[in-house]
């Protein structure tokens, strides 16, 4: 269990490193609501892609005691289209949108204004081909062909490392019991997760999915479809606000991810469970996990 907590902490530190804690937060705190949304939208898409992955590797939920602890690693591919968005510079510059870097992009665009004045839109801060994440997960069941899934992690202490609060809960129900002679097992599930990092980012993730699987000796093939709804709340004091603006920014925006298809493999070796899957939707996500339990 400890190693899984380390995994989560390490992955958070990679995407939200020491020093970059303030770097990312400082970068966001310069942005108006619209610009912050565009700047962070690919991050939310990737983050939500990860968070809504890796819940389970089988649709077989029989009425027998199950307890399993897993460490889940996820990675969302970051395409080149996630590196730019259209931003509007502040006055007195033209209010026409300008193509510039998202958080995953490189240099911000320099706009020209009156009297030779210039303004540089925010630089990108993260250089990634994919966004990684890891999380610990506990599965407990099965009662009435139903199991509960928990994700939990909390860290608060070292001032150089952002505080992290993750809580997730899900429920899965085996529906094969309602049908006879099905060639596959079928399950449905829903999950809610909350993930707060640092001082200004707070995210919520909801997903509902249907899964089918079939066992082949030690190996299970599984697949499914999932609907998901994710939001990110940003809460900060806008640096450089005008007297007409409310400097206290507090807003939420939605992930572009809504539907995904899932396909994966699950290998069960006694108490050891290994699985990996690919998720195809608005973003592409790989997940892999190692678990121990029954």
């Amino acid at each position, binding site marked *: 269990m400890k190693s899984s907590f380390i995994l989560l902490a390490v992955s958070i530190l990679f995407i939200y*490193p020491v020093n970059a804690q303030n770097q990312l937060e400082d970068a966001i705190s310069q942005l108006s609501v619209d610009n912050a949304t565009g700047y962070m939208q690919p991050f939310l898409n990737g983050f939500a892609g990860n968070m809504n992955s890796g819940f389970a590797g089988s649709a077989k939920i029989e009425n027998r005691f199950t307890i399993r602890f897993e460490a889940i690693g996820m990675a969302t591919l970051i395409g080149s289209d996630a590196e730019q968005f259209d931003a509007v510079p502040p006055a007195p510059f033209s209010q026409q949108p300008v193509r510039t870097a998202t958080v995953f992009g490189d*240099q911000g665009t320099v706009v020209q204004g009156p009297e030779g004045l210039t303004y540089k839109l925010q630089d990108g*801060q993260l250089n990634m081909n994919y966004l990684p994440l890891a999380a610990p997960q506990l599965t407990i069941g099965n009662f009435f062909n139903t199991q509960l899934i928990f994700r939990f992690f909390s860290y608060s202490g070292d001032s150089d490392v952002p505080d992290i609060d993750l809580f997730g809960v899900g429920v899965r129900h085996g529906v094969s019991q309602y049908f006879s002679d099905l060639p596959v097992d079928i399950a449905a599930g829903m999950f809610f997760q909350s993930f707060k990092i640092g001082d200004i980012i707070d995210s919520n993730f909801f997903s509902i999915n249907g899964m089918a699987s079939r066992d082949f000796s030690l190996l299970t093939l599984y697949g499914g479809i999932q609907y998901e709804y994710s939001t990110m709340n940003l809460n900060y004091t806008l640096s450089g606000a005008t007297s007409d603006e409310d400097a206290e920014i507090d807003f939420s925006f939605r992930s572009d991810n809504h539907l995904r298809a899932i396909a994966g493999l699950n290998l069960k070796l006694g108490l050891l469970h290994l699985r990996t899957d690919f998720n195809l939707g608005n973003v592409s996500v790989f997940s892999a996990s190692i678990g121990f339990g029954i």
Partner: protein
Amino acid sequence: MKSQRKTLSGLLLIALIAISCDDIVRSNLVMIDTVSLFTYSIDTADNNYSETERVNLQSVIDDIDSSVEDVSFFNITMRVSNIYDSSPETSFSGQLSVSQAGSNQSQAIVTFNNIKFEDFFTERSIFSDDIEGVSVVSDGISTLADFYNRRPVPLVDFTVEGTVNRAGGEERVVFDLEVRVYVQVATDP
């Protein structure tokens, strides 16, 4: 044995993530916007006014924890924040000028002619074309830009001076004029 397996698996995953995530934080700058705000409280019994505010432009840099690579201003705005008992129809003319503290050589940044108080109840950029009678002085803009390029950035006197044209029957014309200088600081975190 179980705990060894878990630790080994964890370390392998961490190593995989670490190897593949080298240099994931860009060495780019973080652009930080700040505002220098100073307010002139003008109270004149005749038609003339002149007020000076000494501003420590270096404080923009000193307030930032990170290493500062570049400082430049990108906007100057004015707003009449309070007119007390003066008429909103009262207008003012004059200029905002800048000089290094202690120097008697000032350079106008902007001139304004017959601007009604009510037209400046909302913050307005001196670069905006919305209001007639406001003219930016290029040499003054260059002078201020040059101040921001110096290290340390010097103390600067901003002076607003000119005349008022009463619209009401008030004995004194009293108003507060806010000036904001918007600055962008490139920092290396």
